[in-house]
């Protein structure tokens, strides 16, 4: 089960509100490659994993991603404080504001609400781990793109931290895949699905 630690993994202290930046960074909360999707993917994939190390890895990384979701939400929360009507309109955040005011709603920057359609749980060791590798790369690219769009160091410091976590997760999922392959039939990795077939 889950307990909550009343602290962030890395500090979020944004001195200057900026609704225009919030408009793009929201994708890392509820977009196709954002932290909500990452945590739901990993936490749901772990149930059909046959090996302890994969159950553990998916639990641990999935949990960390929930903490990251909290950090990105904190960024949005701090970027959208004290907005005048002019700033809301000028920033283009007006289309978000009308439905959510300064709340944090899990959506993509495009306005498309978070959807489980952006993640997969295939119930197969190799498919799921490869999905996870791809997911971490996509998240990393999204952070790269945010870094191109922001010049506020209070924001970019946090984004750099979150981006580096994706690279580390990629490495760990890759190692999980290596460990899984070691356990599987080296003459034919595809003879059965260890997530479903017994023996």
């Amino acid at each position, binding site marked *: 089960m889950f307990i909550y630690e009343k602290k962030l993994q890395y500090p*979020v202290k944004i001195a200057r509100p900026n609704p225009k930046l919030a408009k793009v960074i929201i994708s890392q909360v509820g977009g196709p490659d954002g932290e909500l999707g990452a945590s739901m993917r990993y936490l749901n994939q772990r149930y059909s994993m046959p090996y302890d190390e994969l159950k553990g890895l998916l639990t641990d990384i999935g949990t960390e991603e929930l903490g990251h979701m909290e950090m990105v939400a904190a960024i949005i929360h701090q970027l959208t404080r004290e907005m005048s009507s002019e700033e809301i309109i000028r920033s283009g955040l007006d289309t978000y504001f009308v439905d959510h005011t300064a709340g944090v709603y899990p959506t993509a920057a495009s306005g498309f609400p978070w959807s489980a359609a952006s993640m997969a749980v295939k119930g197969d060791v190799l498919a799921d781990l490869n999905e996870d590798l791809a997911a971490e790369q996509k998240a990393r690219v999204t952070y790269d793109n945010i870094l191109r769009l922001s010049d506020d160091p209070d924001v970019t410091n946090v984004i750099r931290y979150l981006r580096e976590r994706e690279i580390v997760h990629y*490495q760990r999922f890759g190692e999980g895949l290596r460990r899984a392959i070691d356990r599987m039939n080296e003459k034919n990795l595809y003879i059965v699905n260890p997530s479903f077939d017994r023996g």
Partner: protein
Amino acid sequence: MKNKFSAEERWRLGSLPDPAPLAAAYIPMQESAKPQYDAGKALSRGTLFPGLDLPFMNLVNPELERTPMTELMAIDFVVDELELYLDTHWEDREAFELYQTMLAMQKEAKERMVRLCGPICQTDQLGMDAYRWLNGPWPWELCERGEG
């Protein structure tokens, strides 16, 4: 590829099976938990391991200002990083022993933080004089605990 790395840069490389069965993807295994950054640098870089420190456009964060909260965050972060490493390197005794050392430091740092600023987990309230869990600030708010 091998010729681009000097002997001192071994920590940038990992091991691959040679030869390897076809039709599978292989990520090199990280070979060791060393070398590693100190806790403060690890937190600011987002990884304990220099080999995984691969910044976009080579732009890196400055180290964080030291406060009771960032000290705890740094220790917690090293613990988190070691847990993920041990998830795929559970036989690494050296890393496990380092993990034990960090857990002891974490316990102390957390207790200090709780005395200073109130509960971090609900159950930290054992022995407290009142229900302090609801007290602000909450982690997403601008003003951080441990910093006034």
